[in-house]
């Protein structure tokens, strides 16, 4: 089975699709989205709030190794159907990015395998393309920081 994560971002559209198949029963896959302790482990973030229910809200906070807060995000939950569906918003705090809408579909494939499909809708094509580039830009900045450290050592 192909277990790699697929990202589909059609040119000129303000949405994207992320699909992944897991070697896990759908109940466990879903639990990884609901249990705050588990969420914090795989997302690498602190879970300040996670109300897994309709009209619930969530808030995450990510810190660097020195304890400085580098990233905060929050949203509200619109639909919550255990082992099937979560519809929620996602907003990065203190950034120019507009809030995005996320549809998460959890699907049982066999007793031991499952599939997650994330459908994310953005305010505009430009916002989507900027978000897609974030990891690359961060990579560049990290490379730059390393370069600076090397340069400082040389001096």
């Amino acid at each position, binding site marked *: 089975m192909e277990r*790699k*994560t*697929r*990202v589909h*971002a059609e040119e000129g559209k303000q949405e994207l699709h*992320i699909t*992944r198949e*897991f*070697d*896990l*029963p759908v109940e*466990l*896959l879903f*639990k*990884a989205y609901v249990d705050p302790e*588990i969420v914090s*482990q*795989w*997302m*690498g973030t602190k879970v300040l709030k996670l109300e897994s229910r309709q009209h619930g809200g969530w808030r995450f906070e990510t810190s660097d190794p020195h304890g400085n807060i580098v990233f905060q995000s929050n949203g509200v939950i619109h639909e919550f159907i255990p082992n099937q569906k979560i519809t929620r918003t996602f907003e990065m705090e203190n950034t120019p990015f507009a809030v995005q809408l996320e549809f998460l579909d959890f699907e049982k494939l066999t007793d031991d395998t499952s599939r*997650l499909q994330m459908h994310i809708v953005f305010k505009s094509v430009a916002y989507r*393309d900027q*978000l*897609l*580039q*974030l*990891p*690359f*830009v961060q*990579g*560049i*900045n990290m*490379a*730059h920081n390393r*370069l600076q450290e090397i*340069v400082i050592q*040389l001096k």
Partner: protein
Amino acid sequence: MELRRDVFQAIADPTRRAIITLVALQAMTPSAIAENFGSSRQTISKHIQILTACEILEQEYNGREIYYHLNPKKLKDIADFIEPFRNMWDDRFNKLETIMKEYQSKH
């Protein structure tokens, strides 16, 4: 297609990648770029030439000084810009799978 391959060769060199990361933050003159490296100005100038030929860097004149800045459009082409994003999610999901398998074996 020929040019595209050249672009990838251009960024395969660590010094040229370092130049890209410097110029990504602000437009710089050739001498300001060279100050960051131990190599001779000539060597750095050669690297800048290659990056300019591949359209990764663009020149702009400010008075008598030439400044180089990044051509983001080109960089986007090179990065196959979905790939780092995909990798980020792949890493997260791999972690999720590992954690939940451990959880499964304990319960």
